[in-house]
């Protein structure tokens, strides 16, 4: 397998982008990534998108995206793995370049969510759970993570305040992200007084409904060197699944798929958690970030809450998490999220993350998760 580099990234602003369509969102991010990379052609592309069909009524997105990018005739693949669609597009693009099948591959992600009403979007997101045995009974994604949160609080004594601190930290970071949907700081008290969504989770525990897209250009490291680009290498990747239903897992607080995907990536990169300078993880809800840090091996089981409280996940902390602001502050256009994580890592490695820069970062990890944790994709990147 060949070593693969990320040579260009692009992103749209994240938010309620009323005047932007699904196709233009994707095209804007993809063109920005192509321009950033300096390549004059791409040979293949992957588009991560959870549900253009439900949110916009548009399927066959791969062809549409290639057409509007001015790339008709190239192979284009739409990738769906719920909220991990973007991360999976990244992994497939990586595999295509690493295998030698093609040299220049675009990986992107997009979601246009505000063309649906609130309850429609809630339903659409819910399709990532088991339709017949979870959604049939009225569960929602905040509801599933609330079930995880309640179990975590019962089992480990995680506090309501510790959950809030995840959101407060991510908003502090996101306040310095020009593309963030909610670039402002919030307080623990503000989280605890915000409107209840699914007890114990309140609106400020939840990532928002977001429109947005992100893209990256991958090529072999040898080619990147010839192009004179700073080398940002993909040194590890992992992908694992778990039961579709939350209730079928032995321990609802444990993200086994994340644990396994991380283990694969660590092994491939020959790194351990303490080697990683910062993480971009899937904080779709505050409790998710706590469970993810436990599954990534950053803390022992049940110790995620105290770690947040101790400031270990802050930009200056022992293992910074989500300097971008995470899904919480930056926004969560579900299919785009996995690629937006890659965007943040490239910006950090280039020293272009003003106000939220992690100092001397050289190795970073992404973790992108679908459903209530039924699929996870991880990547580890290294700046040469």
């Amino acid at each position: 397998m060949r070593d693969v580099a990320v040579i260009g990234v692009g992103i749209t602003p994240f938010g309620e982008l009323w005047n932007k369509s699904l196709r233009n969102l994707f095209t804007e991010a993809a063109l920005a990534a192509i321009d950033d990379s300096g390549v004059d052609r791409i040979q293949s592309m992957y588009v991560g998108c959870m549900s253009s069909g439900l949110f916009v009524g548009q399927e066959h997105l791969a062809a549409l995206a290639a057409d509007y990018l001015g790339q008709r005739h190239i192979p284009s693949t739409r990738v769906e793995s719920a909220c991990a669609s973007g991360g999976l597009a990244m992994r497939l693009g990586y595999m295509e370049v690493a295998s030698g099948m093609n040299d220049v591959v675009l990986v992107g992600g997009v979601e246009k969510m505000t063309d649906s009403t609130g309850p429609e979007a809630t339903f659409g997101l819910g399709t990532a759970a088991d339709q017949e045995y979870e959604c049939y009974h009225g569960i929602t994604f905040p509801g599933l993570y609330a079930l995880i949160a309640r179990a975590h609080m019962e089992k480990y004594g995680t506090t309501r305040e510790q959950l809030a601190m995840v959101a407060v930290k991510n908003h502090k970071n996101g306040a310095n992200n020009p593309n963030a949907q909610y670039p402002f700081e919030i307080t623990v008290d503000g989280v605890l007084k915000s409107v209840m969504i699914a007890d114990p989770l309140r609106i400020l525990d939840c990532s928002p409904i977001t429109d947005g897209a992100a893209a990256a250009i991958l090529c072999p490291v040898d080619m990147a060197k010839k192009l004179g680009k700073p080398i940002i290498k993909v040194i590890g990747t992992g992908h694992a699944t778990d039961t579709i239903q939350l209730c079928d897992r032995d321990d609802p607080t444990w993200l086994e798929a994340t644990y396994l995907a991380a283990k694969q990536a660590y092994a491939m990169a020959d790194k351990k958690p303490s080697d990683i300078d910062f993480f971009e993880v899937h904080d779709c809800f505050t409790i998710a970030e706590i469970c993810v840090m436990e599954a990534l091996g950053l803390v022992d089981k049940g110790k995620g809450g105290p770690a947040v409280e101790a400031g270990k996940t802050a930009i200056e902390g022992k293992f910074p998490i989500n300097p971008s602001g995470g899904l919480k502050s930056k926004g969560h256009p579900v299919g785009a999220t996995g690629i937006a994580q890659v965007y943040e890592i490239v910006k950090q490695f280039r020293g272009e993350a003003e106000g939220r820069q992690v100092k001397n970062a050289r190795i970073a990890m992404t973790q992108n998760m679908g459903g209530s944790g039924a699929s996870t994709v991880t990547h580890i990147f290294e700046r040469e």
Partner: protein
Amino acid sequence: MPTPSRYWREIPQRYRYEASRCTGCGKIFFPPRLVCSACGSREFEPTKIAEAGKVMTYTVIHTPPQPFVDQAPYAMGIVELDDGVRITGQIVDCDFSELAVGKRVRLEFRRISQDGKAGVIFYGYKFVPEI
């Protein structure tokens, strides 16, 4: 909304709680599966899930999906039934202040949702406190 055929197909599980037990390792699957996730066996015998158990975790949904808008707020939980099978469902006839991990509940037949005013009515199980 499930189409009538899609709803009808699940009736044995939703009305009668029918499950399957792996003849290889004894694991019970609800709904039934074609291959055992524990031992890989493809041989099963019909069984039924236990009709009572205890709440493992719970929530109260305040922002529901479209078909449940009229029902909010409503409680949901994961319940470990007395045979070890875990299922997800609404917890009704229970004041929210009385929800608790470990609370004993049993299955009861209820209306789950409906396809608008004119479409099919969807029935199934919910949890009620065991009194």
